[in-house]
C-alpha cells in the first residue's frame, strides 16, 4: 500500500524549509525533490509570478473600471470629451477642417498612460470605449475560458485515461477510438464548426441548457477538441504502469478498481498531469484567441483578447494600439505559462535534467 509520505502532493515551501533546516524528514518524497529543483529555477518562478500578476490584474477589472477609469467595458463615449492637462480632448476625433487642413474623423484617442487621471490609459477604440478597461475584462474572459477549459479537459482526459488503462479490454478500445476520432479532425476547424453551430441557438440537449452567448460554449468546445492531446499520452503511461508489480501487490491485498486507480496509478502520473495542465492552459488561451478572432469563440459584446484583436485589425494603420496591446497581453500570459510549464517538467522529470548535461 502507498504510505502517507508517497502520496504527499504538497509543494509546500514550509515543508521544504523544515526539511532543509531541521533535517527531520528522512525519506524525501519525489515532490520535495522536485520542489527543490524548481525553487532554484528562478526563471520559471519569475514567469509564474508574472502569470499570477496578470491573473490578479484581470480579476481587478471591476474595481479598476469603477474607481479609476469610471466607465464600463461596453460604455460608448462617442462625441464625448475628457480632460487632459486642463484641455478638453474628444475621445473620438470629429474630423473636418482643422487649421485649414482636412482631417478624417473617427480616429480614437491614443494611449494616455496616466496623463488623463486614469482614463484611456491604453487609448480608446472606435466606439469611444476605454481600451484598458476592455483589456482587463477581456483578459478575465480569456483566462476564464483558458483555465476553465484546461481544468475540464485535463480532468476528463485523466478519468478516461485511468478507466482505459486500468480496465483495458473493450473499455480501453472504446476510449482509445474516441480519442482517435477527435484526433482525426483538425483542431481549429472542429472548434470553429462546433463554436458556430452552438452560437446559433446555444445547446439544449440531454437536459443541459446553455445560452448562445455564454462563455461555457468556447470553454466546452476547447476542452472537447483538446481531450486526446492529454488523454492519449496519459493512457500510454498508465498502460505501462499497469503491468508493474506494485499494482499486482495492491490488487492482491484486495484493493478495488477505484482504489487502485486513485491511490496507486494517479500519484504516479500526477507529475505529468501537472505539467500538461500548465501547458494546456497556455495552448487553450491561444486557441480561444484564434476562435474569438474568427468570431466562433467569445461572442460580442463580451470582450476577450481575441475579439479585441479582431476589432482592431481594420484600424491597424490609424489606431495600431487596438490590435497590438491585447496581442502583447496574450504573448506575455502564454509565454509565462509555457516557461513555467517547462521549468515544472524539468523539476518533475529527472530525465530532463540528465539530458541538459550533455
Amino acid at each position, binding site marked *: 500500500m502507498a504510505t502517507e509520505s508517497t502520496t504527499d502532493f504538497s509543494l509546500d515551501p514550509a515543508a521544504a524549509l523544515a526539511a532543509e533546516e531541521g533535517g527531520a524528514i528522512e525519506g524525501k518524497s519525489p515532490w520535495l525533490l522536485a520542489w527543490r529543483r524548481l525553487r532554484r529555477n528562478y526563471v520559471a518562478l519569475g514567469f509564474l509570478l508574472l502569470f499570477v500578476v496578470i491573473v490578479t490584474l484581470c480579476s481587478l477589472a471591476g474595481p479598476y473600471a469603477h474607481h479609476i477609469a469610471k466607465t464600463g467595458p461596453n460604455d460608448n463615449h462617442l462625441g464625448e470629451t475628457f480632460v487632459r492637462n486642463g484641455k478638453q480632448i474628444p475621445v473620438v476625433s470629429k474630423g473636418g477642417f482643422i487649421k485649414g487642413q482636412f482631417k478624417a474623423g473617427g480616429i480614437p484617442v491614443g494611449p494616455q498612460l496616466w496623463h488623463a487621471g486614469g482614463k484611456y490609459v491604453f487609448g480608446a477604440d472606435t466606439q469611444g470605449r476605454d481600451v484598458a478597461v476592455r483589456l482587463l475584462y477581456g483578459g478575465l474572459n480569456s483566462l476564464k475560458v483558458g483555465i476553465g477549459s484546461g481544468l475540464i479537459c485535463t480532468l476528463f482526459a485523466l478519468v478516461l485515461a485511468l478507466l482505459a488503462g486500468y480496465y483495458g479490454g473493450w473499455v480501453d478500445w472504446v476510449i482509445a477510438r474516441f480519442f*482517435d*476520432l477527435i484526433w*482525426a*479532425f*483538425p*483542431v*481549429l*476547424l*472542429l472548434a*470553429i*464548426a*462546433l*463554436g*458556430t*453551430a*452552438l*452560437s*446559433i*441557438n*446555444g*445547446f*439544449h*440537449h440531454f437536459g443541459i441548457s446553455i445560452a448562445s452567448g455564454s462563455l461555457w460554449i468556447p470553454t466546452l468546445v476547447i476542452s472537447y477538441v483538446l481531450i486526446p492531446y492529454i488523454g492519449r499520452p496519459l493512457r500510454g503511461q498508465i498502460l505501462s504502469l499497469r503491468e508493474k508489480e506494485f499494482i499486482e501487490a495492491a490488487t492482491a491485498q484486495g484493493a478495488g478498481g477505484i482504489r487502485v486507480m486513485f491511490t496507486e496509478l494517479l500519484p504516479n502520473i500526477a507529475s505529468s498531469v501537472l505539467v500538461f495542465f500548465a501547458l494546456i492552459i*497556455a495552448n487553450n488561451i*491561444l486557441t480561444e*484567441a*484564434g476562435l474569438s*478572432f*474568427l*468570431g*466562433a469563440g467569445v461572442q460580442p459584446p463580451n470582450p476577450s483578447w*481575441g475579439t479585441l*484583436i479582431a476589432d482592431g*485589425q481594420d484600424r*491597424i*494603420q490609424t489606431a*495600431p494600439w487596438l*490590435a*497590438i496591446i491585447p*496581442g502583447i497581453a*496574450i*504573448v506575455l500570459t*502564454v*509565454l509565462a505559462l*509555457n*516557461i513555467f510549464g*517547462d521549468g515544472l517538467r524539468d523539476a518533475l522529470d529527472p530525465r530532463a535534467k540528465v*539530458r*541538459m*548535461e*550533455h
Partner: protein
Amino acid sequence: MLPFLVRRLIGAFLVLVAVSFITYLIFVKIPGGDPAPRIAGRLATDQNIADIRQKLHLNDPFYSQYWAMMQSLFTGTLKSYSSQLNVVSEIKRGIPATLSLTIGAGIIWLGFGILVGVISAVTAGGLSDRVITVLALIGISMPVFWLGLIARYLFAESHPFSFFPDGEYVPLTQNPWQWFVHLIMPWTVLAVLSIGFYGRVLRSNILDTINEDYVRTARAKGLPPRRVLVKHVLRNSLIPIVTLFGLDFAAVIGGSAILTETVFNLRGVGQYAADSVQSLDLPPIMGVTIYATFFIVLFSVVVDLLYAWLDPRIRPT
C-alpha cells in the same frame, strides 16, 4: 506490407464514416430546431424550405437524413445559405492558395527547424542553445494572426519599411514572381511558429542519439566528427521529425493556415470557412471540415507508410 496497407485503409475508412457522422450531428442536430429554414437561408420562400425538407429527407429517420447529407456533399450540390454559391466549386477555387501557403511554409519551417536543431544540439548548454530555446518558446507563445497583423503593419503598410505587398494571393500560373513576393510574409509568419518547436524536438533527438553505442563505435574508429553527425546521428534523429512533419503539415492546413489566410486575405479554403462564421453560414464550414478531415486521415495513412519505409524496425511483416 500489403496486409498492413489493407488494415490501415479499412481503419481509415471506418474513421471517415465516424467523422462524417459526427459532422452530421454537429451541423444538423446540435443547433436544434428545424434545420430546413437554416439551410434555405434568409431569403427563402416556403416552397424552398419544403423542397429542402424533401431533398434532405428531414421528415425521415436519422440514417436516411445522414445519407442525404452525404450525397449532397459528394455530388457537389451543397449550396451556401447566404451567397447561394456552390460549396464544392468555392473550395476548389481556394485550394491553390491554401496549398501554396502551406507547402511553402512547410519547406521553410522544416529546413530552418533542422538547421536550428543541429546548431542547438552541437552547442548544447552554450549561449546559442539558450537563445534558440528562448526564441522557440516565444515562437509557440504568439498567436499567428497577431504576428501576421504586426508583420503587415510593419512591412507592408507603414512607409519606411514597406517591402512587401499587403496581402492578397496571385496565382502561380499568372505571375510566378508576384506569387512569390505576395507569399513571403505569410510563409514566414506561419513558419516562425514551428521553427523553434522543431528545433527543440530535433535537439533532444540528437542528444539522445549521440549516446547510442553505434555513434561511439563510429567515433572510436576515427571518423571525422562532421561525418558522424551527418551520417550516423542526424540520419536517425530525423525519422521522428519526418512523422511529426507529416502530421503537423496536415494539422496546419486545418489550423493555423485558416488564421494566416484570413489575416493576409489569401482567399484560400480556410478563409472561405472563416468568412462563413460571420454570417453563421453552416454549409461552407461543413464542407471544409469534412474535406479537410478526409484529407488528413488519408494523409496520415501515407505518413504511416512512409515511416514504415524509413524505419525497417517497425515495418510489419
